[in-house]
């Protein structure tokens, strides 16, 4: 082993400039690979983070428009869900897969407290909704069964709405106004107070964490109260249920078809009309998202490998020149007893050594590059419609990827050296007798 290294070192030392130039191409390739992988990871982490806190075994069902004429009625008829759909969904027909069923209704409202007011959405919900949306309660409580039974006018506000109503400025705004720490009002002081939705006062019973992804200033009140006050019929806006035992996309599809058929018949819609009811399946969405993530990961690898290919061709080229230059030397070696394999080994080892050494340099630089990315773009936050989205979250490469890159480097080095090494092994020992 030591002998091979000293041979490689002797060979490389004689061709410093050439080796460095070729090595740079390899370093650059690996640098790009690492940077791409890091950025890709950051992007995926960001997507992952925005989806976190949502239960994945949930389907949301909405009324839509029919797409097929049926029973004497034209297509394009509006379908509205109602309490009967909730009953059907929760009945024995679907007991095999469906666990909890909750309905919700919602209405846009101007929310007012004292002299502060803000636009928002008042939704009527059941207690199980909290778990389905993985809603985090910061102060007080969520809607409970007594609220439902008593149609109580109580509400859970998201933190940002509570802050707005209390006139609490955000930190950055406080800094701008220069009043940091001036007037301190605790957000929980609103719990127990009455807040007006339109003209109707609701008592605040809790404050939940703001979830920008779930909707615009969404406040949670008991389903029964909101339906009675604002809808005044048994119509519902949305139906959600948790389910189990549908592991594949095909199983989900089959279940959705069956489910549609049942609901369609309740609304006098063709059983095979797939438009009358809209189903948003979080589980299959999650599956598709994971697939997209994987595809993205492979795409980054692909681009990176193509970049690396340039470097590899360079190394192969240099090795060919080296073999050409050393033909006489290989002839001598063979004349005094070198087997073809020992010559092959020499060239392959040299090729792998160049690729690995410069590749590792590139990898190191790439990792530093990722750190820089993390400190700059990684800290940037896009604000879209009051929603904060981090573009890149931890754009770094892990140990697994480092090992993958190492394997790629060794394979690449071997490939680059294969043809030159084969050529070197074929040098005839008679070459040794040829005078220089």
């Amino acid at each position, binding site marked *: 082993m030591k*002998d091979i290294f000293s041979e490689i070192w002797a060979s490389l030392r004689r061709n410093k400039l050439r080796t460095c130039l070729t090595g740079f191409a390899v370093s650059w390739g690996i640098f790009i690979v690492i940077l791409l992988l890091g950025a890709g990871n950051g992007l995926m982490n960001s997507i992952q983070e925005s989806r976190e806190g949502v239960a994945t075994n949930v389907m949301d069902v909405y009324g839509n428009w029919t797409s097929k004429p049926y029973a004497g009625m034209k297509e394009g008829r509006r379908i509205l869900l109602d309490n009967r759909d909730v009953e059907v969904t929760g009945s024995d027909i679907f007991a095999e897969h469906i666990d909890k069923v909750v309905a919700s209704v919602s209405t846009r409202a101007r929310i007012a407290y004292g002299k502060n007011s803000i636009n928002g959405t008042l939704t009527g919900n059941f207690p199980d909704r909290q778990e389905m949306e993985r809603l985090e309660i910061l102060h007080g409580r969520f809607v409970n069964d007594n609220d439902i039974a008593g149609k109580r006018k109580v509400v859970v506000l998201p933190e940002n709405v509570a802050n707005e109503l209390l006139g609490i400025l955000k930190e950055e705004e406080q800094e701008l106004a220069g009043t940091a720490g001036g007037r301190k009002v605790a957000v929980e002081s609103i719990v127990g107070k009455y807040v007006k939705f339109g003209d109707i006062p609701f008592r605040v019973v809790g404050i939940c964490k703001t979830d920008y992804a779930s909707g615009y200033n969404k406040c949670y009140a008991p389903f029964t109260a909101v339906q009675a006050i604002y809808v005044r019929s048994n119509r519902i806006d949305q139906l959600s249920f948790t389910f189990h035992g549908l592991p594949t996309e095909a199983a989900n599809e089959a279940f959705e078809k069956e489910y549609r058929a049942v609901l369609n018949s309740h609304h006098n819609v063709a059983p095979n009309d797939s438009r009358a009811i809209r189903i948003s399946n979080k589980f299959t969405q999650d599956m598709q998202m994971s697939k997209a993530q994987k595809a993205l990961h492979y795409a980054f690898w692909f681009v990176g490998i193509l970049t690396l290919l340039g470097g590899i061709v360079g190394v192969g080229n240099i090795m060919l020149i080296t073999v050409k230059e050393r033909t006489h030397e290989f002839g001598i070696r063979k004349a005094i*007893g070198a*087997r073809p394999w020992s010559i092959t080994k020499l060239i392959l080892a040299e090729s792998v050594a160049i690729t690995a050494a410069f590749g590792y340099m590139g990898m190191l630089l790439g990792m530093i590059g990722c750190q820089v990315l993390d400190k700059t773009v990684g800290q940037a936050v896009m604000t879209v419609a009051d929603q904060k989205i981090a573009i890149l979250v931890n754009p770094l490469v892990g140990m697994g990827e480092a090992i993958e890159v190492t394997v790629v480097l060794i394979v690449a080095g071997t490939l680059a050296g294969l043809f030159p090494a084969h050529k070197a092994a074929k040098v005839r020992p*008679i070459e*040794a007798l040829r005078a*220089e």
Partner: protein
Amino acid sequence: MLIELKDVNKTYNNGQPLHVLKGIDLSIDRGEFVSIMGASGSGKSTLLNILGILDNYDTGDYYIDGKLIKGLTESQAADYRNRMIGFIFQSFNLIGFKTAVENVELPLFYQGVSRHKRHELAMQYLDKLGLTAWAHHYPNEMSGGQKQRVAIARALITNPKILLADEPTGALDSKTSEEVMQLLSKLNREEGVTIIVVTHESGVANCTEKIVHIKDGIIGEIEDNRQHRSSMFGVNTIMK
């Protein structure tokens, strides 16, 4: 017999077929000091390639120490070359980026001898040839004679059955040539090394004990030269 060639034929088929060796019969015994002499184009280089297992022959048989050298794979040929034959070349053929001692070690490296052991042995051989002080010098820091002595040390280190010298004095001046030839004859005389020298110089051939003349691919006269009277320039002189 150490070396036996029986009706060895060799034809090169580069375009026009060229029959270079036309049935060579040659026997060389252990401890002989032989020169093969011939003009360029006589087939002596081809004969040397075959003797050194650097090239194949078409028909006939070639035995070294009773072992038939025929139809070998490249690896087998490499092993035989490594263990049976020591080469001395006209242009020394030392590896330029290796020191003298590293060059001498090389054949042992291909035998898989340990680093320490082969270094020790290489130093012994360099010492024997009076090159201890030059052990860690590179070939381009040495004179022609020194380089050829390093090459001789490299040829001897595997303790080969035959020392095969191809124009060993071709790149040396007459004084150094004489020294090298004296060294070879001393090795033959005192250590009983079998030496075959291929040359076109009669002075060099005259230093050997037996001269094999080759002409047009056929062995001509085999001259007994124990009296060293072959050269017209007298005993122990090499005229350049």
